């Protein structure tokens, strides 16, 4: 693998895991969010070589086969997406949040999710979905 390969390109082009999206390409929008050792990172600014030997989770690895997680179901029932381009990043980010903090405070949700931009929903549906998923796990 060439040293200059980005993790986002490795996932999409070499492994065919196109659920990870590339939006801004400069680390701002969050569409390319994946988990490296359970921590969300910007895969468009991470060299694939930096992730060598570490555990990578993409949107493809969130659901258990066809069984969606409570968070994914909440995105559907709460209207947490519209066009869908940002959704993989939103769900990967929120998954990491709920794994760290099962019942996050409102401020914690907002701070954690602020790096995942959405141009459709106005964010309220996304926040509702994260809250609903946290409550569902109670």
């Amino acid at each position, binding site marked *: 693998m*060439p*040293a*200059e390969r*980005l993790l986002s390109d490795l996932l999409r082009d070499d492994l065919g895991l196109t659920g990870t999206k590339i939006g801004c*390409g*400069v*680390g*701002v929008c*969050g569409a390319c*969010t994946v988990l490296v050792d359970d*921590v*969300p*990172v*910007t895969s468009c*600014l*991470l*060299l694939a*070589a*930096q992730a060598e030997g570490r555990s990578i989770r993409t949107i493809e690895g969130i659901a258990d086969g066809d069984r969606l997680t409570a968070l994914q179901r909440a995105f559907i029932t709460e209207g947490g997406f519209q066009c869908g381009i940002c959704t993989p990043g939103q769900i990967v*980010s929120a998954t990491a949040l709920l794994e760290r903090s099962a019942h996050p405070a409102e401020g914690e949700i907002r*701070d*954690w999710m*602020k*790096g995942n931009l959405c141009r459709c929903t106005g964010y309220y549906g996304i926040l509702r979905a994260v809250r609903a998923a946290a409550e569902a796990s109670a």
Partner: protein
Amino acid sequence: MIAPFELVRAGSLAEALELLESDPEAHVLAGGTALVLLMKQGLLRPSRLIDIGGLAELRGIRMNGDLRIGALTTHLEAERSALVRRHCPALASCFGTVATVRIRAQGTVGGNLAHADPAQDPPPMLVALGAVAVLESGAGRREVPMEDLFVDVFETSIGPGELLREIVVPPLAEGARATYVKFLPRTEDDYATVSVGAVLRVDADGRCADVRVALGSVGPTPVRARRVESALRGERVTPARLREAAMLVREEVDPIADARGSAAYKREMAGVWTERALRALLP
């Protein structure tokens, strides 16, 4: 999109220093958030990167009276560290305001300082706290006060062959309080229009025993507000005096006009936010 380069992984600090010495043109890769972006933009085409990401010597947070943060500690680790929170809550929350959680999870405390972007959050806070950067090279170790680390936009006093090893944050003096405030008129994840790190100690008779103020985003480096400090030191800190002193910062900053405001606006806001920061520290 990124031009080809050679990636060399350093297995130890000693090896990293040898690699640096043998190839002064090589760039150091830590978290990569800033470096990889410069390479994607085509502004940087290094022939070799030295990956120091695996160096255990540069990781972790320790206390020995002073707080010592290893250069490869991520912002997220620093923000959530019980040691940092206990030592100085304002510093922990400052690390927590950097960019977004993803960038904080990837970008390192040392990489951020070495990148020397004047719009970054930790530099002014660390200058106000009197922190020190520990630099290591084949020739040995030297300590540089944080305010001397920054030379210009994207330029530091880290010399060729030197690596930022850790930062040392002395404890706040008894009775001193610290804060970091950030003015974000556009969006929450934006760079600050102006930011202020401040430490204030007011003695029992309401006089300013000590004060340190530094600003971000309003000059090529963090700006230490020495005039503000000397107008307050030894004086009784009334709200009026605080305001008068804070406004002196307008003569100390050197902002540039950009999408976050004109130079004149930023100068004005530097005064306003310096006052707010200091007022929040009054007993």
